[in-house]
């Protein structure tokens, strides 16, 4: 199943990106080759062999929207701009991407040769009597394959992020594995597990109720419920390692592992701290109002997950003996 989903995410992603790029090309979404005209307000002139003017491109929002066929911004656009005339007389224009830049140009800049600016060829330049530009007509560099570029960038960036996430786990992993080892040697986990044996015996019938895996799972679920994600992940991984010691087929998930994962992905949290924090930041009158609804949602998800794991684990397709041959099982015949 994971094979299909994994491949579908990649294939659908790339095909949709190609489709979107083709559509943009056919509709000329980014108006490649079209001439854009606007007034300029020059704030700084640097005369010399290479003449540079800096200032704002002033575009009424209606003109911008009708040129690109978009709905954006509700005021006059003041886009920082630099006009350069080289010694041989070649004029060029660049729109510097910043706070004041309309969202559509920001989006276009993601596919431009430089991420910080959109460059273009100057078609016409109207000078004031003082020799300062008053209005310009220009054609921006062609923007193509925006989605394909985004897909490439995303794939390369996230591969690095994945390593950072894993390396970031080393420290807290070490801390909790150390604490758990002490608890194990002291027999503390056994005391903890004895209290919850009636529940854990039903959830994980294949796991002996005094096994260290049970202790680690209880600690993980408790940490998750309290929202201590720094502790929950290391404890969960410890639990997986303990469950793996009971796993007859190395490399293949056991029933207990899937049930444990179902409880984990259900995400039962008493206080959804992140969601509450974001609600408070965006100015909610009552950020905590979602506590009750979140508990209901997560409880339903957890129950559904556990029930589904108990039903699906019986299906023949998930019990093929040869699904992943481990070293010991490979025979010569």
């Amino acid at each position, binding site marked *: 199943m994971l094979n299909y*989903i994994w491949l579908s*995410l990649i294939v*659908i*992603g790339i095909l*949709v*990106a190609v489709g979107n790029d083709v559509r943009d090309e056919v509709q000329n979404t980014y108006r490649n080759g079209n001439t854009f005209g606007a007034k300029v307000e020059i704030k700084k002139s640097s005369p010399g062999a290479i003449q540079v003017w800096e200032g704002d491109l002033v575009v009424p929002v209606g003109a911008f929207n009708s040129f690109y066929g978009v709905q954006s911004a509700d005021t006059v656009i003041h886009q920082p701009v630099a006009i350069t005339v080289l010694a041989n007389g070649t004029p060029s224009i660049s729109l510097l991407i910043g706070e004041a830049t309309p969202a559509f140009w920001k989006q276009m800049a993601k596919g431009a040769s430089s991420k910080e600016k959109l460059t273009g060829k100057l078609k016409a330049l109207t000078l004031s009597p003082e020799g300062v530009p008053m209005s310009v007509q220009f054609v921006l560099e062609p923007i193509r394959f925006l989605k394909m570029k985004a897909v490439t*960038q*995303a794939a390369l960036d*996230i*591969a690095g*992020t*994945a390593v950072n*996430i*894993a390396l970031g*786990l080393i420290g807290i992993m*070490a801390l909790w*594995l*150390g*604490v758990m*080892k*002490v*608890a194990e040697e*002291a027999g*503390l986990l056994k005391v903890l597990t004895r209290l919850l044996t009636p529940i854990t015996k039903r959830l994980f019938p294949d796991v002996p109720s005094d096994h260290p895996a049970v202790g680690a799972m209880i600690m993980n679920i408790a940490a998750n419920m*309290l*929202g*201590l994600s720094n*502790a929950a992940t*290391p404890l969960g991984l410890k639990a*997986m*390692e303990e469950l*793996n010691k009971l796993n007859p087929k190395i490399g*293949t*998930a056991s029933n207990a*592992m*899937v049930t444990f*994962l179902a409880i*984990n*992905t*259900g*995400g039962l949290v008493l*206080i*959804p701290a992140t*969601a*509450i924090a*974001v*609600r408070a930041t965006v100015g*909610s*009158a009552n950020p*905590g109002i*979602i506590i009750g*609804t*979140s508990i*209901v*949602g997560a409880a339903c*998800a957890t129950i559904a*997950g556990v029930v589904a*794991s108990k039903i*699906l684990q019986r299906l023949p397709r998930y019990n093929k003996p040869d699904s*992943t041959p481990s070293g010991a099982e490979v025979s010569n015949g």
Partner: protein
Amino acid sequence: MADLFRSIINIISIFAIPLILLVFLSWGFFKKVKVYEVFVEGAKDGFNTAVRIIPYLVAMLVAISIFRASGAMELLSMALSPLTSLIGMPPETLPMAIMRPLSGSGSLGIMTELMKTHGPDSLIGIMASTMYGSSETTFYVIAVYFGAVSIKNTRHAVPVGIIADVVGMLAAAWIVNLLFG
């Protein structure tokens, strides 16, 4: 009532880790465990576990980020919206429901955006934050947890995770409609 509950849980959360450290380590000391040596012995595995996760995490996150960057989410939301509007789930919250099991940071961004656009106390705002609060990033959990023990054949874990997510999202939509609709 909700405020009292919240402050109790907050206090427990703040004290939990220091208390666990204190109780576990001193209990070990009383039981004659060589606490420092045993701690270090256990902590040694932290590095191996973290490094073992890397290939699984790269595989999973790359696929998800390609899917996100392509704009496939918008297409999927459009295709599913007639179905979900039947059960009273506003189409605006659909990208949230789809993104939640795939990406933690992605769904956080969608939730923030929805609340900024529609207001945090609107039906959409409450539903989006309930959806965020009532679920985990399923595919991340699967990659990390199975990666740590080098499990490649996940058997029924993915269908179970998806069933749990669908039920969770529908339950969130139902309860929010019931209480705030």
